[in-house]
């Protein structure tokens, strides 16, 4: 479909939304509530664009391109509308960027910067404060919530848990657990997928470390917890992981489970084994891989000779890759000669 965007002609597939079309040509349209994986909700209204002949403004996330459409994404009228909307949001928002964990990775902050919004024109009545820190892994600060609905929709449409929803109406609307009983008493499984999508600092991991987003670098890795192999981006400050974000461009499509998302503290825990250990005179002492492997093979040979193959039993872990597990059973079956081999994922 031939479409004109900001004076240039482009060709898009039928059914493409204006928002997608713009992102395909590298045009940044602000949005706080859009997520390709979810049913569009059109609630933040920031992605509005002007379409010639269409009268009022239209949200790019819920409008599909049509043949001959002429779109303006940054006309004066559009910019004014976005400024007004951001002004309304920031007017009902604590100005705590100085201490907010999200600072530097906050979409509200970024857009206010981009559109030149300072402290908000209407700093009158504020939403009722509410803070829920009953979940072991993350906190919810209603004051910072901009009600984009992403958390609610992710929990419903992708996670399928439906632990949270909206409560009250209008200005009093809040994200809440049923009957206000708190996250602790809800059906929340702490997957943290809501935390991963929150565009502001309303849902924050209970971080053990202080860090600024701009101090971190990102390393893509595979989650080591199970064979699904979710891809994740580790946020690293210095030499320490400070946060985990799911990868969106991988098969896990931006989702993780509670372990992948929150359980990385063991990595730098002082009790963690970092070198192989061998028991000498009843005491475990650190050693190198060569010695460790020598000990293992000599013991295996010894046992096999004396007690036979079925004296062995092997248990491996879901945290190893399929390839590792394959090699492990191969070792037991063909080298040691026993079928006594199993895996912890047998639930």
């Amino acid at each position: 479909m031939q479409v004109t965007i900001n004076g240039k002609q482009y060709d898009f597939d039928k059914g493409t939304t204006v928002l997608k079309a713009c992102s395909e040509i590298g045009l940044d349209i602000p949005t706080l509530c859009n997520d390709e994986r979810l049913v569009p909700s059109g609630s933040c209204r920031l992605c509005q664009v002007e379409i010639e002949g269409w009268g009022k403004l239209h949200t790019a996330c819920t409008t599909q391109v049509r043949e001959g459409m002429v779109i303006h994404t940054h006309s004066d009228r559009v910019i004014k509308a976005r400024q007004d909307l951001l002004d309304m949001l920031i007017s009902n928002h604590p100005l705590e960027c100085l201490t907010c964990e999200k600072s530097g990775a906050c979409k509200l902050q970024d857009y206010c910067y981009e559109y030149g919004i300072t402290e908000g024109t209407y700093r009158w009545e504020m939403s009722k404060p509410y803070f829920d820190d009953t979940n072991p892994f993350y906190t919810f600060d209603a004051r910072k919530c901009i009600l984009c609905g992403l958390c609610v929709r992710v929990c419903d449409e992708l996670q399928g848990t439906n632990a949270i929803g909206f409560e009250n109406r209008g200005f009093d609307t809040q994200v809440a657990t049923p009957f206000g009983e708190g996250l602790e008493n809800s059906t929340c499984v702490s997957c943290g997928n809501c935390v991963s999508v929150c565009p502001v600092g309303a849902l924050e991991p209970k971080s053990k470390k202080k860090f600024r987003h701009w101090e971190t670098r990102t390393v893509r890795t595979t989650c080591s917890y199970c064979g699904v192999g979710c891809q994740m981006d580790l946020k690293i400050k210095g030499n320490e992981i400070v946060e985990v974000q799911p990868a969106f461009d991988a098969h896990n499509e931006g989702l993780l489970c509670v372990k992948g998302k929150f359980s990385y503290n063991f990595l730098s825990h002082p009790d963690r084994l970092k070198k192989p250990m061998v028991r000498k005179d009843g005491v475990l002492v650190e050693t190198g891989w060569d010695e460790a492997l020598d000990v293992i093979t000599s013991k295996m040979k010894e046992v096999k000779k004396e007690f036979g193959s079925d004296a062995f039993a092997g248990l491996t872990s879901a945290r190893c890759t399929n390839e590792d597990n394959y090699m492990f059973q191969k070792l037991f079956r063909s080298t040691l000669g026993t079928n006594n081999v199993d895996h912890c994922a047998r639930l």
Partner: protein
Amino acid sequence: MITKEKLFEIKEKTKPSLVEKLLESDRVEFRGEDLVLKGEYYKKQVRIALKNCDIIDPTNIDEYIAMDGYFALLKALTEHEPGYVVEEITESLLRGRGGAGFPTGRKWNEAYRYQADKKYIICNADEGDPGAFMDRSILEKDPHSVLEGMALGGYAIGSDQGYIYVRAEYPMAVKRLQIAIDQAREYGLLGKNIFGTGFNFDIELRLGSGAFVCGEGTALMESIEGRRGMPRPKIHRTAHKGLWGKPTIINNVETLANVPVIMNRGAKWFRGIGTEESPGTKVFALVGKVENAGLVEVPMGMTLREIVFDIGGGAQDGKEYKAVQTGGPSGGCIPAELIDTPVDFESLGKIWSIMGSGGMVVMDENTCMVDIAKFFLDFSVEESCGKCVPCREGTKRMYEILDRITKGEGVEGDIERLEELSETVSSTSLCGLGQTAPNPVITTIKYYRHEYEAHIKDKRCPAKSCKALIKYEITDKCIGCTRCAKVCPVVAITGKVKEMHHIDQSICIKCGACYDVCPVDAISII
């Protein structure tokens, strides 16, 4: 199961005694062939949607049949294809009475032509406008007309399931509807194989719990599906993808009540009533400071003057008429100088108001227009679903500004700020609620800017209604009767018998009780 013959038999058996009973009661008279309610109030009215109201017993299906009820359905099912019904309704140019005035036939046609294994028809009986009770009257007093309209719609678009979304605050309507559904099922007018034609159609009730926004079509569907009632963005037409993703037609109670009559008397007859572009009639709930409040059904195009003065009898208590508000919280205030505006979709739109679902609030000289704007906006603020930013945050800020103005705390620039917020909220909100919420503010600023200015600059309420800006004072007309002192709830009035009384302004709570009770009008509001 009822047959054609049986339907005729019921009519012939019931009608004579019904007519006799009615004429005896002296409440009705004949206008041509039609039985209509008697009295001055009804003279100028033309009743189509309300034609049976207060005439038949709504809990007796036979009386509905006696007034030609279910004959339109019989005729459609036995003599016509569904396409014919769609054409006839399109031809009649019946426009939705729920507020937007969208042509019903065009909507039906969309669903009719869309292939699907299941389709739905929904009757929107959520009527949430403050002070509106048009739909309620039809539901309570003539429920079968809605059922028949839905069955006709179902036949037209190829749906076998209807839902009536009715607010739980209308317990009588719910009860009467359920009785009507049960009776229609018993007669086989709902259910399987209606009139032996193979057409199946049934209706179920769904109760809403009083959120105004659930009257919005997509929020209503969310609510029926068991979710929180919040509007969906309109990516697809609901006539293609509506309830549970299936083609769905949603129509207002009054719209549906018009359908059987149109099918009975023909599109041509219908177009003979009302105006070229808005044929037929509209029911209004005429309320506020009007002499004869109540429901009126008039041909479209009748002027506001005829409705407010000829039928409504003008402002109450001999006060001066000031304005009329149409369209409820989504509508606008129409000033006295525009009283000769014809009431139809186009004409009202031109003067910044809307037809809406039929609320018509009359205001007199003591109505403060800033306060009225605040009243309607407060409703929208309370009823906003909170989904989108402009409506959730913006209407609240507008309300705060209006509240300050009425309290005498308005500041220079408030009017402009209101205008700016109005523009943003109406042009960027997701659904009709937010898009129209600023209308009362926009129109009152447009027509009564001087009242806003008086509040802000002179700290004066010209209508003498905003408490913070008025004072009650006793003038020398006082005869010292002591009545005011007795009635004052906070003992602010002192004075000896037969001597002039005095109000202590620091105690007075401005309740107006003394003003109402003074026999010589010695108390003035300044």
